[in-house]
């Protein structure tokens, strides 16, 4: 049943497994309990209050039906893994490319890297995903494009019951924990394309910022001074120029994380990857209030926490900032 209008918020709390009279009863009770005869902002306040008490309501989507808290526990670890892998790839690929592009200014390598990063910058994430799919799954046929693992491998596993793997709910990690290398490899193959997609999307910005920042730093006196000491170019770049050039990258990291999280939503949808992004999209398509409310809240919390933590870490790294 679709509850709309002023009563929209109730939808969160209707246990989808109830039907008929029992359902009507619950609805009436909920209307009473949640003051739904009162304006929407009051309702919102009550929702927030119950959230703080741990009750996030129910969600009803094709991929999952049940308490929101359970959905989060199920989907969040996957998204976390994806985001972390994507972040690592961004770092590992983006930083060297950005540095190299600045050092080899205007040479063919620089031009190539710039073309590459500008193009990536202008690409919607789903397009990157689609192109990767075409290359790796259609032409080369080496990587799968859906889900986290080949389901046939999961039959009869002791640590996998009812679609949930234990103990961490993340197939890849659980497989590693249990020493099941074959499954772990398969899971890895499933996660490469999604994380690569995210990494490519975010990398464009990182490369651009780093390149511009490095070019500025390389004009600075202290780089000339380092050269005047007779230090080899490699040390000048890696120990003197780049650490200072990284600061704009760090300060812009909040936006990078925002991009990452937004990207996660689309990427998971394209690859049918069971994370909170996919869940959010499904909630949207099915008008599932619980999913959307909880999903938004979740993303907000994640973003704020990560930005805060990263800000602190990067501020500590900068000797020009001294706390207190």
């Amino acid at each position: 049943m679709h509850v709309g209008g002023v009563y929209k918020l109730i939808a969160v709390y209707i246990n989808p497994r109830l039907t008929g009279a029992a359902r009507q009863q619950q609805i009436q009770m909920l209307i009473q309990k949640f003051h739904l005869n009162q304006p929407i902002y009051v309702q919102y306040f009550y929702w927030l209050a119950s959230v703080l008490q741990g009750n996030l309501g129910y969600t009803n989507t094709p991929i999952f039906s049940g308490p929101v808290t359970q959905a989060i526990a199920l989907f969040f670890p996957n998204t976390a893994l994806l985001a972390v892998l994507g972040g690592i790839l961004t770092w590992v690929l983006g930083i060297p490319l950005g540095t190299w592009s600045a050092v080899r200014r205007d040479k063919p390598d620089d031009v190539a890297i710039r073309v590459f990063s500008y193009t990536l910058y202008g690409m919607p994430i789903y397009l990157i995903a689609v192109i990767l799919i075409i290359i790796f799954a259609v032409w080369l046929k080496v990587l799968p494009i859906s889900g986290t693992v080949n389901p046939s491998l999961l039959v009869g596993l002791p640590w996998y019951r009812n679609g949930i793997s234990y103990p961490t709910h993340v197939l890849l990690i659980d497989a590693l924990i249990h020493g099941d290398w074959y499954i772990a490899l398969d899971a890895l193959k499933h996660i490469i394309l999604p994380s690569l997609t995210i990494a490519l999307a975010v990398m464009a910005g990182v490369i651009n910022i780093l390149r511009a920042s490095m070019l500025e730093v390389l004009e600075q006196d202290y780089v000339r001074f380092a050269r005047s000491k007779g230090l080899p170019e490699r040390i000048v770049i890696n120990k003197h120029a780049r650490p200072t050039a990284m600061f704009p990258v760090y300060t812009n990291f909040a936006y990078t994380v925002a991009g990452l999280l937004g990207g996660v939503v689309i990427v998971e949808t394209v690859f049918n990857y069971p994370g909170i992004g996919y869940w959010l999209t499904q909630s949207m398509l099915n008008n599932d209030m619980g999913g959307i409310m909880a999903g938004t809240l979740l993303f907000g919390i994640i973003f704020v926490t990560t930005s805060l933590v990263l800000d602190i870490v990067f501020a500590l790294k900068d000797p020009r900032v001294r706390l207190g």
Partner: protein
Amino acid sequence: MAKGGLTSRILTPERKLSLQVFFSNKLAVVGLVIVLAYVADALIVQFAPWLIGLKHPFEVIPDYSNPVPQPPSWKHPFGTTYPGIDLLRAVIKAIRLDLGLSVVVVVPGALLGIVIGIVATYFGGWIDDVLMRLTDIFFSVPYLVLAIAIGYALGRTITSMVIALIIVWWPLYARYTRSVTLQVKELTFIEAARAAGASNYKIMFRHILPNALPPVLVQMSMDLGTIMIVISGLAFIGFLPVANIPELGYLTTLGLNYINTAPWTVLVPGVFIVIFAVSVYLLGMGLMDVINPRRRSSL
């Protein structure tokens, strides 16, 4: 020899130098040309679709007699996508919609942000604080997610998508304008203006605004690209519950089932987004070169 008259009054030496700097940047010129081409497309489709023989400029017409995507050919230069939609026509129509939507999001969002930014920063005090908290809230959620949430609350239509994106985007401009306003506010010529009796309103809009404008304009032009990407992304995940709209993201979804056999169905619409975004970015970089005096004198 210096000539009098209109030409040399419009083309002051300052402006001439700016034009020179801009046009010396070949990439920026290419960007400009492409952006203008897109704008031309949008205008023609909007106002004179008969010029290029479009009978249904605002929607995409499927052909169920031939639903399977066809590869590029003379009849269909970009091929067709499911169900039987000619991609060339579809893309031409879609450019108008996407570009139009981007403009409708960026311009009001920027205006809103600029005004709020200047006013709040200029008056300072608690108004400024409230502004900062507000922008912080909006920054704290990734824009895609917030757009989804707002879209849900207001119903999933094009209008609500535009409203959602405006709401998500104006804080950026408020922040931007804020930093410029803070700088300019303390400059002595503001004091001089005040001493001469200028009202607050005048100061804000005749003195501060012109200084804030150039970098903001550059940002706006680059945002046109970014917003187009976001809009198509939302359309791609199914935000708009309608079929047959000429929208580049939506067109991509039509081809998803045919990735193996007909890759052009997913690539063509996306490519047109990329071309626009990159062009607008190059254009923005070219403009930045013009307004930033430091970059002019170095090689």
